[in-house]
């Protein structure tokens, strides 16, 4: 299986196959592609927008992808469990503004939940259990001294959260954009911004590659990392251009693209942020032992360079 990896990577072409979740994450890559930033770095990007991301890491390990986008929890778990993957570049970040982020915990108007303290003992919907959602919610609430021991997390897909909220089947729901904007339009009220309230500028997404790919295609990986940094910088400077391109890139309603909160993008991986998440994973019991975050990050200087033949 693993031996099949990187076959096309060593044949001299400049193709990089990236698996990334549809929606905002994929839009980020497509935008960079449209702007010609990847081409500038000598990379021909092939985006495989596999939907759930559940398949991305196996596909990466199986050698069907060169790079996989993932959230940091899944990415670190994979590495921690012994999969030969490394974080090569950052993905999305939460904003620095606790009042404005692309994710929030929503409640309905008449729920009686007024603030974070009322979430104690509530049932909260998250898209995936034991992942970035419940980690950041618990972290954010504990930060504010709220008792989280009785919170009931329930797994519901993002699209189904709003109906579940309206019908009162859950007390609160943790959503991301565009469901945050849609929910707001329907009169739902944010009571917590778990990402930023847990840690300002939390790193949420990352790009993974296999150790083998890094070994044999170090330059490509480096070029990819550099391109990502450039795209991030470009968007940070010209957020309106990115916003304007969204309806085209993701078939999003223009009004929605207009109103929604964009994630932040940075040019490098934030080890402190990763360490924070790793700590929370340990204290929440998702892992039995401490994750060695540094060993999971493939920093440019740590990359062993060209193949070792």
């Amino acid at each position: 299986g693993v031996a099949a990896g990187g076959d096309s990577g060593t044949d001299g072409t400049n193709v990089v196959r990236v698996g990334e979740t549809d929606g905002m994450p994929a839009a980020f890559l497509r935008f960079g592609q449209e702007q010609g930033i990847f081409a500038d770095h000598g990379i021909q990007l092939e985006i495989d927008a596999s939907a759930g991301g559940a398949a991305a890491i196996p596909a990466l390990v199986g050698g069907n992808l060169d790079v996989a986008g993932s959230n940091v929890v899944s990415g670190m778990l994979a590495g921690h469990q012994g999969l030969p993957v490394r974080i090569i570049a950052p993905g999305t970040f939460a904003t620095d503004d606790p009042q404005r982020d692309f994710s929030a915990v929503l409640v309905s108007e008449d729920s009686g939940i007024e603030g974070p303290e009322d979430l104690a003992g509530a049932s909260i919907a998250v898209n995936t259990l034991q992942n970035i959602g419940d980690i950041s919610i618990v972290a954010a609430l504990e930060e504010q001294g709220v008792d989280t021991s009785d919170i009931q997390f329930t797994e519901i897909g993002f699209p189904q959260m709003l109906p579940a909220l309206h019908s009162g089947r859950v007390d609160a729901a943790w959503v991301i954009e565009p469901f945050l904007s849609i929910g707001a339009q329907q009169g739902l009220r944010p009571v917590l911004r778990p990402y930023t309230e847990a840690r300002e500028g939390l790193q949420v997404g990352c790009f993974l590659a296999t150790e083998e790919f890094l070994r044999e295609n170090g330059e490509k990986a480096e070029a990819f990392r550099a391109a990502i940094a450039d795209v991030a910088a470009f968007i940070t400077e010209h957020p309106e251009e990115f916003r304007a391109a969204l309806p085209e890139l993701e078939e999003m309603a223009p009004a929605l693209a207009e109103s929604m909160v964009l994630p932040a993008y940075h040019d490098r991986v934030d080890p402190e942020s990763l360490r924070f998440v790793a700590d929370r994973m340990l204290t929440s019991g998702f892992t039995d032992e401490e994750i060695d975050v540094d060993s999971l990050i493939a920093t440019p200087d740590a990359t062993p360079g060209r193949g070792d033949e």
Partner: protein
Amino acid sequence: MRNALLGLAGVAAFLLLLETVPHTGLVDDRYLPPFSEMARALGDSAGTAEFWQALGDTLRTWGTGLALAFAAGTAAGMVIGSVPALRDATASTIEFLRPIPAVALIPLAVLLYGTGMEATLILVVYSAFWQVLMQVLAGVADVDPVARDTARSFRFRHRTRALRLVWPTTLPYAVTGFRLAASVALILTITGELIIGTPGLGRLIAVAQTSGAVAPLYGLVIVTGLLGVVVNLSARLLERRVLRWHPSVRQETAR
């Protein structure tokens, strides 16, 4: 003819229900829009090349998977069913493997085939195979003893016995197996596209889901349902042709 009309009446009743339920306020029409809206959204997407491309992809994966599963299931079923020793020896293994859901095998499929069509295909074949196999096994067991003795007494070769005695008896079961397998295959095709992200209708559904586009989502769901109806109609037609002698079909034509 009468049957076709009745079927249309059934569909019409269902559509009427689908149109009126959202208006009654029983469910929020933001999440279950009336049928007319679904149809409009479907009409819109039917105008796009992307839709037809996806439909084609889904049909290809599904057709290939179904064909493979049907061929393999029939062959294995005929062989296993005809040899009692083999039947006994494989029984426990079959019962062990059957309830393992294909979705649990997704990581393995992706590992082997990436996010290409093959990954979904393997799920499709795996799940549809059991449907056919179990039906064919039941069919083989249903051969009339007197007819079997007749074949033996005339010393029919194995091939003739299989083709002229066992297969016709099994055929009604196999047709049912085909119908079951067809929908399971379709389900797995869509599911695979949805979860693994191989190209096809399932991908479009996933996109519609993540972007909160409710009416187009239902439009796509309707398309998958319609595919199921079409398969069933063809299976019925086939059945009427090849099972003219079967008591079930006989009665209908005689009365």
